[in-house]
């Protein structure tokens, strides 16, 4: 279908420390015992998209991710890895691989997206409207805080920052305005001529940008080339395209014109005009066309381009893993309500449970994990080859691989990374424990983040 897929996997995310480290870059952060990148790749594979470019920040991370992909998706996907320097942003990453993009349209997916929104639907919307950019919007999950209990408090203060302000036309097809978290602090400026052209704008703040975009390649490359300062797709490129949709700059439309001319042999130049006129008269004009025609009669004097929005249905699951809270939520949801995202079974093959040990619903136990007597596990994910002593309580937590937990520990709302040792009677509440950390016996922590000092 002439689409190229770019997965922006990211590298070391600061918002996710201490979960993310040099050994575990963000794409490989396990969510319900699968690296988060798995969800995206799996989703793309389901949609029959098998030629992918995965962009990773940092050489080392690139090697790690590449090794993992070659191990997991061999024979299933054709993946190419591009390692780009860190801190050049999403737009920078695309700029770096820009010369590999050849297809007519580009689908850009963030590697930390856990969702069941079909990429095909986004692409189809994009094609149908012949848009320059199509952004995927999804409803902000309402649940979150209510279920996760104690950790909810912290969550509430953070959440408003993640909201976007999004303006849509009455038919909810076109993007008229998009402002991301940082800009909301300031006043929101709307363009008068845009409002005038559309007539009515619907401003929504309950939609989240899922960071799955379809771009027209020529335009994307053009924008990336011309605007060197653009760092981020979400904050710079997409708002720029949305802003300029009614005064599309000459270069953008120039390209399009050239393409069209190239496509059609100008054998009957006069008739060509009539054909296009018949076609354009046949469809309900969007405000773009009306606006471009307003000037004088039918001549299209003003150049416009379309920015579409694909709004995922409220029943679909769509969350980005961009904070520790999101990490907890996704872990809980993937094992619980959104378990269709995982193709394989939730409970590993052979966990060894001691006597009187209970494992509640919405739990996941990796293979080879052992638990002692009288343990309780509720709404938690436990990785592979963990050893858990007796009288341990794990609630609302994520325990990664190869973790040793001593007797009598109580873990609530925490994330425990790989190779951590918890000695006896440790009490953790809302903590994050970095990889390889050793927690001394009997210690109590609340709301802290524990990590080994980097040497």
């Amino acid at each position, binding site marked *: 279908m002439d689409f190229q897929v770019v997965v922006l996997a990211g590298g070391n995310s600061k918002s996710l420390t201490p979960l993310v480290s040099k050994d575990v870059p963000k794409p490989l952060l396990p969510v319900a015992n699968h690296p988060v990148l798995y969800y995206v790749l799996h989703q793309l594979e389901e949609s029959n998209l098998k030629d992918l470019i995965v962009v990773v920040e940092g050489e080392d991370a690139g090697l790690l991710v590449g090794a993992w992909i070659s191990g997991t998706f061999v024979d299933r996907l054709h*993946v190419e*890895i591009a390692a780009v320097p860190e801190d050049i942003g999403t737009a920078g990453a695309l700029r770096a691989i820009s010369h590999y993009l050849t297809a007519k349209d580009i689908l850009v997916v963030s590697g930390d997206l856990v969702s069941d929104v079909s990429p095909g*639907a986004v692409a189809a919307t994009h094609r149908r409207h012949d848009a320059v950019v199509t952004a995927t919007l999804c409803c902000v999950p309402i649940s979150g805080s209510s279920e996760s209990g104690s950790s909810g408090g912290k969550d509430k203060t953070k959440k408003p920052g993640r909201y976007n302000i999004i303006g849509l036309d009455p038919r909810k097809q076109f993007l008229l305005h998009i402002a991301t978290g940082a800009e909301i602090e300031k006043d929101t400026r709307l363009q008068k001529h845009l409002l005038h052209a559309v007539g009515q704008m619907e401003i929504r703040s309950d939609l989240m940008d899922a960071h799955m975009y379809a771009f027209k390649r020529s335009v994307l490359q053009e924008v990336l080339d011309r605007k060197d300062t653009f760092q981020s797709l979400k904050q710079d490129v997409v708002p720029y395209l949305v802003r300029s949709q009614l005064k599309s700059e000459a270069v953008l439309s120039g390209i399009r014109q050239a393409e069209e001319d190239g496509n059609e042999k100008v054998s009957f130049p006069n*008739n060509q005009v009539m054909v296009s006129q018949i076609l354009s008269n046949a469809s309900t004009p969007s405000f773009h066309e009306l606006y471009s025609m307003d000037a004088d*009669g039918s001549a299209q004097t003003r150049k416009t381009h379309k920015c579409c929005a694909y709004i995922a249905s409220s029943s679909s699951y769509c969350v980005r893993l961009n904070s520790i809270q999101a990490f907890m939520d996704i872990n809980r949801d993937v094992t619980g309500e959104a378990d269709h995202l995982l193709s394989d079974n939730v409970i590993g093959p052979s966990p060894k449970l001691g006597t009187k040990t209970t494992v509640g619903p919405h739990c996941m136990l990796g293979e080879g994990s052992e638990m002692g007597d009288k343990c309780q596990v509720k709404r938690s994910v436990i990785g592979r080859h963990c050893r858990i002593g007796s009288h341990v309580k794990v609630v609302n937590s994520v325990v990664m691989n190869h973790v040793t937990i001593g007797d009598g520990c109580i873990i609530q709302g925490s994330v425990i990374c790989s190779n951590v040792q918890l000695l006896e009677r440790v009490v953790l509440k809302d903590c994050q424990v970095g990889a390889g950390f050793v927690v001394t016996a009997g210690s109590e922590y609340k709301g802290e983040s524990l990590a080994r000092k980097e040497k």
Partner: protein
Amino acid sequence: MDPRRTARTVSGPKVRQVGFFTPAPPERSISDPPRFQDPIQPPSPSPTQVNDHSPSGNSLSPVMIPPAHHHSDNFLRTALQVTSPTKAFSYSAKTVTIPPENEDVASSFSPGRKVFSAKSPSSFPGVKASSVPASELTTVSVVNLPPGISEKAGGASVEVQNDRPVSAKTLKEKTSKAERRALQEAQRAAKAAAKAEGTKASSAASKVVTSANTKPSKAAKSSSQKNDGSQVAASEKKGGDRAPEKDRKKDAPHPRMQYDDKSRVEKAKKRAVVKQTEARNRVELFRHLPQYEHGTQLPDLETKFFELDPMHPAVYKVGLQYLSGDIRGGNARCIAMFQAFKEAIKDYSTPPEKTLIRDLAARISSYVSFLIECRPLSISMGNAIKFLKNRIAKLPLALSESEAKSTLMLDIDRFINEKIILSEKVIVKHAVTKIQDGDVLLTYGASSVVEMILLHAHELGKHFHVVVVDSRPKLEGQLLLRRLVRKGLSCTHTHVNAVSCIMQDVTRVFLGASSVLSNGTVYSRVGTACVAMVAHAFRVPVLVCCEAYKFHERVQLDSICFNELGNPDAISKVQGREEINYLDGLVNQENLQLLNLIYDATPSDYVSMIITDYGMIPPTSVPVIVREYRRDHLWS
């Protein structure tokens, strides 16, 4: 038979054939590795062998053109079997049942094989050098290699072997309906073959086959470019060794299917690309027409965007636009369709061992059936398709592929230009003579020809007034009105309810038509008949403007037999006016049926004149045009 097979036959009793394990004829699975080399070896043992266990192989003589649905396999296979063409044919007839395996073979043998994946991706810089400039991109995962061959590939193979169970498993679960069917048929064929020969598959060998079979088309992709991949998928969808005529039937479903015939509807549903949920409360009289739950089709088709590999993107886009109502109007739909076909033909390449004529015709048919699923064809589109198919069928065999393609593309251009654009111009020229100063012209809906007539008359400086009559729910007239007013015409806008009031001021009625049938009936947008009858009652002449390519030899007396049902929601709801949506919540009631007809038939009695590219004719002369000029339309 050959010794290697008899050696294997000992391993299992006949019962083994019953299981699910072997999707391929067992003999083939046993002789798998040696068979790869068949084309290289002197083919002495194989002809007999092939004939033995593939009854269909016998029926196909070497000279015969293979049936249409094999094209993709052949494409790959020729890479293997250039040496013995005669054998290739019989081979092809046999191997259709197991396309996946074949592709494994193809991929493992193709000389340009790419890398095998490895732990350290950086060790393969510029692997894809052929397609992209080599630098940062590193291929870390490719789709490849059946297990037997992977061992040769070196140390890395261990890792692959470890991963295979996982990948094989997940893929197995995802086999589509068509694939399952192909499997089933393959099993049946295997059973028959086994009965005939008494040979059995060794369980070990069959295991190999199942694992190889579970990764269809992916193997093919690595070895060949995208284009082939899509064709492979096409063949898989089409599945096993069905008779060609059955296949053809599938490509072009019966155009006048009666949708109250349950069994047929079921069958049609099975082959449909677009998910079609039948609407529940349909008006009894119109049960024979297709009506689907609107709103379910579009999202479903959208999610399948990347899975419809055989569909050309341009065709797909047009289909989406039909479905969502972005393109409407007979001429526009026809032009859009032809432009999409042109794109498709431009990108078309004949698979080997196929003739362009047959394969392209089949391809076009599959596009057409896809478009029908999106929205029923208009008569004009039907005629246009007939024209194109005729052109394809009439292509001289001697033409090279590129010549044939450019001929067809020229034909399409010519059709658009001559049959649509030029005839519109001619109609305009004729019709303008009927407009005089001081006339009040009434038009209904938005017809592209009528619009051109009005604009042209205005350009000529004639002074007249236009009444644009419109109707819910589409309100196309408003769009027309917008364009007319901008050009400076003086207009009146009213709805069809008020047509009898305004008609006494009108001096002429200009109407567009979707089609004119050979008894003079004008088949047009619903409401046209009403307008024409009112005009007739007021003794106002009714001029119908219709291009001759839209004429049809069918005779129709009412608008019930053939019609199209639109979205019932469109009439029960008013966009943007929540306060007058009184039918909310009643839509699914048993005793409420909503009818949104798209077309109606205007009897010829109410039509004074038909303006067409051959001049202005009375409705009774339509059959003459159809008879005399049909040749001109279709076989020109």
